[in-house]
């Protein structure tokens, strides 16, 4: 090919760059979108409840994903600690996908069974009281603030528009359901609902 031709015409070079890059992007995104795990919503997968959705907002707001992953990889070190590897269908409703990039703490896909709700609260209030030497910051303000219920209906409606099956009465009831709840409760609801029991039970081979 005559490369000189490209070097002389900025427009041509721009077009070819754009074409090459978009082809690479489309070659991944189009088959991925059509992949069985993404093409349609898993029927038994329940979307996040209103409270858990508020919890996700708090998770995102506090930047939990900077240090924690929510993705158990199919590798010995991961599965020995956190159980079965995460599947794509479990994560069908992830918007955004808070899978995490770095792990400065444990994986949060499923909260470990040995710690109950009270332990989680104590830990979030003062991590080093439960895990000596932990580098995690304390989150006392999550216990002081309560949810106002504002914006939750709009959030659910936006998700509904994107295909998440929320019922109309669920959306209408949402602001009242969450109003007054402490932020910590919402965050724990999100973490506990992260992997719905129905999905774990029905996980195929």
């Amino acid at each position, binding site marked *: 090919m005559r490369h000189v031709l490209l070097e002389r015409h900025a427009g041509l070079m721009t077009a070819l760059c754009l074409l090459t*890059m978009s082809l690479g992007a489309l070659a*991944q995104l189009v088959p*991925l979108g059509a992949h069985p795990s993404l093409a349609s919503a898993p029927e038994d997968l329940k979307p996040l409840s209103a409270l858990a959705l508020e919890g996700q907002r708090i998770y995102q707001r506090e930047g939990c994903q900077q*240090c924690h992953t929510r993705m158990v990889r*199919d590798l010995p070190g991961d599965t020995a600690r956190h159980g079965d590897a995460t*599947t794509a269908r479990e*994560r069908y409703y992830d918007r955004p*996908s808070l899978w995490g990039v770095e792990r400065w703490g444990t994986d949060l896909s499923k909260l470990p069974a040995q710690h109950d709700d009270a332990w989680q609260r104590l830990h979030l209030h003062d991590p080093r009281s439960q895990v000596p*030497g932990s580098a*995690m910051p304390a989150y006392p303000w999550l216990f002081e603030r309560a949810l106002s219920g504002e914006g939750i209906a709009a959030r659910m409606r936006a998700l509904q528009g994107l295909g998440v099956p929320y019922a109309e009465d669920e959306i209408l009831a949402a602001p009242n359901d969450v109003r007054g709840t402490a932020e910590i409760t919402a965050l724990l609801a999100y973490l506990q609902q992260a992997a719905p029991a129905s999905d774990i039970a029905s996980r195929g081979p």
Partner: protein
Amino acid sequence: MRTALEASACHPRVNHHHHASHDFSRMAVIWGLLSLCLAVWLNLIWLWPSLGPEVAWLSYGRLAPLQHHLLLYGLGGSAVIAGGYSIAMHSVLQRESRTDAETAIADIALPPFTLKLMHFTFLGWQAVVALGALAIVAGYSSGQYMAEAPWLVDLLMTLVWLAVAWVFFTVLEQRTLRRLPVACWYFIAGLMLVLIQHVLISLSVPIGLLESIPLFTGSLEALIQRWQAGPLPGGMFAFGVIALLHHMVTSRSRLPLYSHRLAATSFWMLVLLATWGGAPLLFASALPAWSQTLGMAMGLLLLAPGLALSLNGLMTLKEDWHSLRRDPLICLLAAALVSYALAVLEYSLLSLPTLNALTFSAANSLSPAASLGVVATVAIVMAYHLLPPMRSLALLKTHALLVIIGTLLCVAASWATTLLQGSMWHVLANDGRPLYTLSEVLEAARMPMMISLGGLACWALGLLLMLLNVTRTLADQKSERQAAHERQRLSSGSHKASSEPAMHSASPSTTPPATSSGGHYA
């Protein structure tokens, strides 16, 4: 294609670019300094968590994305835009000169609209960085790694980026070089790649002014996020940074690129691989297996063009090896080229499943060879290159040394963490349970984190010296200019009309190259 001479006949001559590039460079230094200070602070509170104040907007989870944001968009982005303008201007001037030499800049005349856009890009980009930073600290992160700004800021960023493209192509239209230099290819590719990535990741349904829900879902969204998170080959500003690298390697050393053919081959291979960089970061995740395999095959392919690019630059500098000793900036460019080779090597090795399994096991991810070693290093060299010659060469040399030591320490610490933690993470006892607890694995990072604290401190100190040097140099230049103006006014009080320097009237082809341009510390 019009020549600069024709163009300058129909538009007033201005040297606004001169100001724009100074402004961008100065802001890049300030954002960079803030980011590195934050990095030091984050490292400190990881080592000694009780130091961290229990204030929501000062907590680790909000400052960590802020640090990325300032480094990538503040330092990297500002330098890339200023550098892009400089690359385009350079193709108009058709000679070995510095873009900020006023004689040279005055030869480029831009339509008033383009000039306005150029100002808009400066203010707009600073607004993007500042508003994004405020939103992250206030807790309105979009939750997407390396793209945390809310949708309204994303929209502004798209507009600014389109304006950058407009200015770049408008200047390029006046070029006197028939063939686009290599730096221009990379910048064009970078403009397109940022648009593709940025628009794809930002497509979302807004809820209110600050929050939104991404259009894509699950593994699709995860993959798009990783394109941006992986600094190579197609990270946010990767191509722009390579453009600056090529531009400065040739224009500072005044040497032709070692091999044009190698440059063309590696360029197109990198363009081909640009949108495949995400999958190696999602190995063994919920991303479908075929997508992982394909992405990792592409990751292995990256080794060839990446090393070719790095070697091409180093072989160019080898023609005048002594310049490394004379000019600290050339020394830094060589260091950036070596870092690029290291980063490419690391990224390609990630495409081997066994090594990938080690990497994302615990605290560690990619080493800062790409972020600090390439993006940040090239960004500060660009800033120095665009600014007038520094007042203190000693300070500049110290800074160069600090950058190299700092990067080495950080990269070494990161690799040590990877190997230590990765090897501990997957060890299982006979009963199938992990041999080491999470706390033990994380504790293994303590020593490397001390080393990286030293590295980051070197970087922060270096940027502080740079800010000092730049401020004093610009103050000096201002007072010198005032003094010269005063002298001129006193000596020829009647010739007020000719206050514009005489050299402005010379055409680009007849003016001798501005050899005394002081950015060259030869």
